Every structure is written in structure tokens, then in C-alpha cells.
């Protein structure tokens, strides 16, 4: 029960198989604080990607000899649920998941003020519930919200997006078909304030010029998603303040104080 290669990834009008333009992101939905047990959590839907992230910590490190004397240890796990892909994935961690766990940790760790919590551990668990291409990027975008939601200090939110090449066109935010049957895929993660890049991978075949174009497109995508991350945090926390202050205003009006 696996995929069949589509005839074309980009049609004559420049539209992709899901109807998007070359430089268009998939629809994104972000929610913060969705799990009760975790210290911080977030959920993302990006196209058909559905990813849940939980953060625990900072907390004591066990066994103690694994602790670092001057900063927190970050433990990151990128994992896919068996029902997340077209063909069932065995629950045991694959080599791909092991590699992705490492590069995702390396994309997030530079943003965290780990030196503020020596000898502790911060756990980041990324569970892919449904996968449709670019899950490492969606996972990083949600993970950074979960870390902020846990109240762990960050230099900046980390945001990630991929760009690549399909049917000789440079495209933004590849879905599963484009990733599988396209010509190149470049996932990028960055700290938007400074533009510092914390994750960069590439697979496929690109000329120098094509690589430049794709990288810039990915960075543009990151900036758009950064705005959505801030919106999601605002939605979670500002609403209470506004509702409460509206109540105060309403009362003042009643008493004729305005």
C-alpha cells in the first residue's frame, strides 16, 4: 500500500498537486499548551502533518553522572507513530529517527539559555501523529513553542521551513510527494531575530544558483511562520488579560465612571 509517482508535480500554470503556487506555504495551524502533564506543549498542523510536542524540565538528571556541571542537558526525541505513514511504521526507532533526533536537538539547543540550569535535564518529545513531508521542520517550529510554553528562557523562538526543487521549479514547503519524487529538498531552521541558522540539510541535485534561490525561499518561509508562532503564543496568553480587562471596563461604565 505505498505511493505511486504522480505524472507531474507542477503543472503548466505553475500550480502544484495540492493547488499551491510555487512559493506558497501549506496551511498551518498552531496551538500552545495542549497537554496537562507536560511542563510545556504545542501542536502543529502543516498541510497534512500533525505533530505533538511535549517539554519536561528543567529537572534533576538521573543518572547523576550524565549531568553537565555548567549547563542543562537537552534530550530530544523525534519519533513517528506507527499509523503516521501510508505504510505502517514499526514502533522501534529507525536510523532516520535517530539522525533526526540529533539534528533537531542541535537546531533547538543554541536558542536555549542552558547555562542558567546547570546539572539539570530538559526533555523535548516530538511525536509525529501524521506525516506528509517536512516533519522535522514542523516539529522544530512546534518544539520551540513548547519550550517557550514551559517557561524555559530562550534567545529567540526557533522556526524551520524547507524549500527544494520539483519538476525543475524551485518550490517552498515540500509535501510528501514533492519530497519523494522531486529533485532536491533543503530543510532550514533559524533564529529569526539574528538570521542565525541552526539546522541546514540538503539532499538531491542543485546548481549553485538554484541552491541560493531555494535557501532564500526557505528563509522567507521561516519568517512567515515566525509571525504565526508569535500569534499562537498571544492567543494562548493574552486572551485572559483582555477578557478580564473588558470586565473591569464594563463595570466602570455601569457605575458611570467612564
Amino acid at each position: 500500500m505505498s505511493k505511486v509517482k504522480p505524472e507531474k508535480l507542477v503543472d503548466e500554470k505553475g500550480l502544484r498537486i495540492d493547488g499551491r503556487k510555487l512559493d506558497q506555504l501549506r496551511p498551518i495551524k498552531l496551538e500552545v499548551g495542549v497537554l496537562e502533564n507536560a511542563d510545556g506543549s504545542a501542536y502543529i498542523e502543516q498541510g497534512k502533518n500533525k505533530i505533538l510536542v511535549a517539554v519536561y524540565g528543567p529537572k534533576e538528571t538521573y543518572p547523576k553522572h550524565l549531568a553537565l556541571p555548567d549547563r542543562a542537558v537537552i534530550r530530544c526525541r523525534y519519533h513517528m507513530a506507527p499509523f503516521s505513514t501510508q505504510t505502517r511504521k514499526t514502533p522501534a526507532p529507525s536510523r532516520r529517527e535517530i539522525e533526526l533526533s540529533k539534528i533537531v536537538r542541535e537546531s533547538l539547543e543554541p536558542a536555549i539559555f542552558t547555562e542558567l540550569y546547570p546539572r539539570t535535564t530538559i526533555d523535548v518529545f516530538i511525536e509525529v501523529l501524521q506525516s506528509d513531508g517536512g516533519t522535522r521542520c514542523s516539529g522544530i517550529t512546534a518544539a520551540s513553542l513548547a519550550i517557550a510554553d514551559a517557561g524555559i528562557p530562550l534567545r529567540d523562538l526557533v522556526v524551520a521551513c524547507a524549500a527544494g526543487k520539483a519538476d525543475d521549479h524551485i518550490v517552498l514547503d515540500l509535501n510528501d510527494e514533492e519530497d519523494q519524487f522531486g529533485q532536491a529538498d533543503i530543510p532550514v531552521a533559524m533564529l529569526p531575530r539574528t538570521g542565525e541558522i541552526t539546522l541546514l540539510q540538503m539532499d538531491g541535485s542543485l546548481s549553485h544558483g538554484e541552491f541560493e534561490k531555494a535557501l532564500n525561499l526557505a528563509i522567507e518561509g521561516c519568517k512567515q511562520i515566525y509571525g504565526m508562532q508569535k500569534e499562537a503564543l498571544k492567543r494562548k496568553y493574552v486572551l485572559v488579560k483582555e477578557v478580564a480587562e473588558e470586565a473591569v471596563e464594563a463595570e466602570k461604565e455601569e457605575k458611570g465612571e467612564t
Partner: protein
Amino acid sequence: MSVTPSTEVVAKIRQRHLIELIARGKRLDGRDLTDCREIKIESGVIDKAEGSTLVNLGNTKVMAGVKIDTGEPFPDTPNEGILTVNAELVPLASPTFELGPPNENAIELARVVDRSLRESKAIDLEKLCIVPGKKVFVVFIDVYILNHDGNLVDASALAALAALLNAKMPNYEVKEGELHIKEGHSKLPMKNLPITVTIAKINGKLLVDPFLSEEQVMDAKISIAIDKDEKICSMQKSGLGIFTLEMIRESVKTALEKSKALRKIVTG
């Protein structure tokens, strides 16, 4: 090898408070001893899976996914499809879930859910046979715990059943011993609707649907699965404490009663 587990330390004051309340027939969250928490079921949440369901039982969140593939039947059941249930206690769901392959709790959970489906013949496995002795459909149920607030068994069993009811398998025909997939989908051939009810024992009292704080102080619990004809199809007592015969009888009666309302929630 199974080793006595170390448990999370619960404040003594909280334990006493809980036990006092229960002695008066009340629980920490205001429920009566035989009340279940609020249940929300959402099916079809994962398109890539052939079937999927998200269950909220109070704050316990469980997702179940159904994947259907083809394979060889077991030699002793050449005319039957295969059902296999797996459960993951992923660390994101609780600070007490450790990383690693399924431990004894995850395996017990999977096998208890499996038992209720298998013994009640929930799926008509014979209808999953494609070419006898050679090719059958294999149904994988993966139970994923997303937030642990107690009673993972009932939440997982509900999620698994609802996901099976939601699942679609491809239409097919067999020509000259070969499998050909046709257009369209059909529902999985279901014959029964087992519902599991878990009852915990705390200080001599029985309570239905224990949440996490209650599980931390309970002596033991018992999970009972009842099928649509009110037959008991599986039972599992779990935990270090004991149940008296009287308590088991009372539990069975309670399970018979509660399963009806729970079944309605799944079938809608």
C-alpha cells in the same frame, strides 16, 4: 523478568484526604464512586491511517490508529486474517514514562485490549481471508497514550474499538489466486462491540474509572470487558493488592451496567 516497581511518592496528607473522601462515598473530583469521567470521542483524525480515533477520558488522552496490510496467515488458522495490538507509553504523556521499548505496563495494556477484541470476536477474521493458506488482511491497532491521567485500559479499549469502527479497507477481488485491489472502500467486518470497565479498590471501597491520583493510592484494580450480548469476554486483575470474591462479583455487576452506556457513546 518483572521487578517490583518504585512508585512516585504521593504526599501522605493527600492520600489520607482521598481515602477519607472515599469512605464517605465521594471522590476528589466530585464524582460518585460509580461515575465515569466525561468522555469525548473524535474519529477519523489521521487520514493516512485506515482508521483512527482520539479519546478523551477526563484528562487521559489516547489516540488509536488502524493500519491494514496483507500478509501470510498463521499456519494453524489458514482461513483467518490477523489482528495485532500494540501500545506505546510515550514519554510525552507523563513524567513517569521512560524512553525505551514497551515495558511490562505497555505490553500488559496492549494484551488486555487485544484480549477483549479477540475473545469477543469483534472483527470477523474469516472475512479477512483473501486466499486461504496464502494471503490474508493484517489489521494493526496502535494505541498511543498522549496524556496519562489514569485508567489507560478503558480509554485505550474505547479508542481501539472506535478506530476499528471508523476503519476502511480497500475493495478487492481474487482472480486466479492473485489479489487485485478495486476501487472504493468498505468498513471492516465487525461482529461484536466489547467495552472494558476498570474498577479500582481503595481501602475496601470500589470505584469506577480511577484517575491518576486514585491509581497512585489504590491497592489493586480489575478490568472487565463485556460484549454486546452481555457476555464477559475478558478480565484482568492488576496491582499488588487483593480482591475478595464479593468484590469481584460486585465489580462484574458494575461492569455489566456501565458497559451499556459506554457502548452507546462509541456507536453514537
